[in-house]
């Protein structure tokens, strides 16, 4: 009996190979298998909660939240192309005063899932709602620009004066300063419409009124969310969502390794499923052995930049020569093995701050060396800076929950070669965040981090990590880098409306910052995902390193 099962499994495997052989080379994603309309798609998620409340969400424009909610603008991403901002509910916006005032016009005939029309007032209400203390936790790049420091949301009866809705289709944002990337900001979750006057209840996320192709059918806390077709969604008025499956079931709290095993086995409902979390190195090694499963693994070409941040405000790292020594001291090759087993799965060694797939990115390397680094050169630079005997007593603080121990140990060993002695201090996630993002005078010298821009603009790569305003107080400038010249350049680039011109400015800033060496770029982290054999149009574009949920469908 058992031998029969094994034989059957082997046959299925063999068929899988022949069927997928044709597009083996086509990483990342199998564009060949064209999905049809209909069927039930399953998403296996490690997370316990899926937040369908736009105000509380930090979701990318192309993942779960996008299935239910449309936004003012959307993302178009494809393999081999930088991501572009495209119309969603509205157009991509226009400005007449150099980026200070932005006006968007909504399409005709848009409807919520309850049949009521979507107006500019509903978009405004959604943005205003994100200011309410009860609905915190989402992406808030718009808050400062809209001048809402003292605004506490629309439920106290006040409107946000910087947003105007002259008619049901037009919405105008008056910003506190010129901002060229505002159309990108308009693609963040808070710009999803919420019917005016609604959404005061804390569990709005469980029955949020939909504008996208799906509405929430059932929401079983911590267990499962079922999405069904929103009959009031009109595909012809939506260029970023394919809306192929009839139903989507999101299973919550799924153990990542079990998910990987289930999808590799590809039986029953799992044929129509994909895993929402990254496949771990162990899972990938395992999937390599199974030809069918291997053909269903999709690895991104690039991804978040992983970097070693140097605390530029603390001696001896306040010395630029010392910081430059770190560029040569690290061993990016060992870092790759520690993070994913092989360089191919871990991702390319990084030398720039702007990540791949972002408009305007330029490839350069100010500190050319071997992948293993050059400890001698590092020693020489340290000697030049007056540290001929190397450095001692540096602390590297790391986030325990991100599985960073092995990677930190790899960095520790590499720096030791150049006479830099480092002790590791691991903290739980929020203790880590308190130390790196909130503390006024943190004690760490080094820390490991990684950054994926929240929208596909070099601005989102650089400003949050290197502007003086982002030091402490919750900002992400964890190298505590402050350079008035760079601050000025950032402000100038941010206020540039022309995409091409802005891109060139950001590339120059990228180089300028790295001359000061506040961080050591390590790798552009690749993410791998696995899907069932009946899941089609499952691709990962150049940015972001996640599959585009909005295009996925079921194949026959």
């Amino acid at each position, binding site marked *: 009996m058992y031998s029969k099962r094994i034989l059957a499994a082997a046959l299925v495997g063999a068929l899988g190979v022949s069927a997928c052989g044709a597009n083996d080379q086509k990483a990342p994603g199998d564009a060949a298998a064209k999905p049809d309309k209909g069927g039930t798609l399953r998403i296996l998620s490690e997370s316990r909660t899926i937040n369908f409340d736009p105000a509380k969400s930090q979701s990318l424009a192309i993942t779960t939240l996008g299935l239910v909610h449309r936004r003012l603008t959307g993302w178009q991403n494809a393999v081999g192309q930088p991501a572009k901002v495209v119309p969603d509910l509205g157009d991509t916006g226009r400005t007449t005063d150099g980026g200070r005032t932005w006006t968007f016009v909504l399409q005709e005939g848009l409807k919520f899932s309850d049949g009521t029309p979507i107006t500019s007032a509903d978009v405004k209400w959604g943005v205003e709602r994100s200011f309410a203390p009860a609905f915190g936790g989402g992406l808030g790049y718009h808050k400062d620009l809209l001048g809402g420091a003292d605004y506490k949301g629309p439920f106290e009866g006040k409107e946000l004066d910087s947003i105007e809705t002259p008619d049901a289709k037009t919405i105008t944002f008056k910003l506190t300063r010129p901002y060229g990337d505002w159309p990108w900001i308009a693609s963040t979750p808070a710009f999803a419409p919420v019917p005016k006057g609604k959404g005061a209840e804390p569990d709005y996320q469980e029955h949020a009124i939909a504008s996208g192709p799906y509405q929430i059918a059932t929401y079983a806390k911590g267990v499962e969310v079922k999405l069904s077709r929103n009959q009031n969604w009109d595909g012809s008025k939506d260029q970023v969502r394919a809306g192929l499956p009839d139903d989507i079931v999101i299973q919550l709290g799924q153990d990542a390794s079990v998910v990987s095993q289930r999808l590799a086995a590809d039986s029953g409902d799992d044929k129509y499923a994909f895993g929402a979390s990254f496949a771990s190195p162990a899972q990938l*090694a*395992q999937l390599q052995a199974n030809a069918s499963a291997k053909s269903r693994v999709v690895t991104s070409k690039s991804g978040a930049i992983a970097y070693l941040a140097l605390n530029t405000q603390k001696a001896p790292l306040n010395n630029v020569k010392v910081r430059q020594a770190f560029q040569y001291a690290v061993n990016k090759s*060992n870092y790759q*093995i520690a993070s994913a*087993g*092989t360089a191919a*799965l871990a991702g390319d060694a990084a030398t720039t701050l702007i990540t791949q797939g972002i408009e305007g990115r330029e490839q350069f390397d100010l500190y050319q060396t071997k992948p293993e680094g050059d400890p001698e050169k590092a020693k020489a630079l340290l000697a030049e800076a007056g540290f001929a005997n190397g450095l001692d007593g540096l602390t590297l603080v790391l986030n325990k929950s991100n599985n960073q121990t*092995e990677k930190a140990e790899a960095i520790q060993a590499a720096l030791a070669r150049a006479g830099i002695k480092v002790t590791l201090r*691991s903290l739980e996630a929020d203790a880590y965040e308190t130390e790196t993002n909130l503390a006024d005078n943190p004690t760490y010298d080094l820390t490991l981090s990684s950054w994926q821009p929240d929208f596909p603009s070099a601005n989102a790569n650089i400003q949050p990590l290197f502007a003086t305003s982002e030091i402490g107080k919750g900002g992400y400038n964890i190298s505590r880098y402050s350079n008035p010249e760079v601050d000025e350049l950032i402000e100038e680039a941010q206020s540039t409306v022309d995409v091409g011109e802005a891109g060139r400015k950001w590339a120059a800033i990228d180089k300028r910052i790295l001359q000061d060496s506040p961080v050591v770029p390590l790798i552009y982290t690749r993410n791998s995902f696995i899907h069932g054999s009946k899941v089609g149009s499952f691709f990962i574009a150049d940015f972001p390193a996640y599959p585009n949920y909005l295009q996925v469908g079921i194949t026959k």
Partner: protein
Amino acid sequence: MSTPVARSVPAAIRSVLARDRWALTGTVTVVLIALVAIFADVLTALEGHDPYTYDATALDPATGLPAGSLGGVSGEHWFGVEPLTGRDLFAIVVHGARTSFLIGLAATLVSIGLGVLIGAAAGYLGGWVDRVVTWSADVFLGFPYLVFMIALGAVVPAEFPRTLLLVVVIGFFGWPSTARIVRAQVLTLKERNFVKAARTLGASPWQVFRSELLPNLWGPVLVMATLSVPGKIGLEAALSFLGVGVLPPTPSWGRSISAAIDWVAVDPAYLFFPGLALFAVTWGFNALGDGLRDALDPRSVTR
């Protein structure tokens, strides 16, 4: 209820080992692993590796898995190597034995010591002491201690020696069950003539405890201790399994097992060696403890 009469402990152990093959095998296993733990440094020196050094050359460059079959088992690496790091698994298991024994034995010492003292005090002194002890034991038994340990693991700073923390915490939460049994024993012993006599002669409670009670408690205490060591070792492994036990890079069987879950399908050797070690030591102590109990407890006719 009949009162257990303690046999001389060494005699009991001798007779158990002579008659009971299970207990004998268990003892041999425990002694062997104990020797491994004691001579961990020598053993790893013989093999030529330590549990901390990364070695990318022992890995398959295509996957990050150990190079070679059976998780890289070879004359060079006796138990193979860890995936992704290339650290020597034999060294990890052998040094893990040290961690397990140290924490298991020390925690047992703490919990049995506390349990005997508190239990004897409650049984002998009676009155409010007894009431307080019985009640606190209830509180402790009602305490979701695993949750609490997980919480403590998260709260205590990384600078605090983790092994000590585990010993104290695991040991501390173990006293109530020992105390209950000791209390019951002492309650019956108290009514026996030799104790009554000592008391009439004006012996202080501490003297009675040392010269009259303790000698009669050795048997059950030894059985309890033997049977509780595997539980303590298992608890350390479970906490490390859940990620709140011994900190890396200190080797621990539980953490290795936890890490091996992900790899089990491609590298079963990674689960096999630490898993086998944990199982063997637990089984050894259990078999020995069962034998001792049968020998020391005249009521028991199980074998």
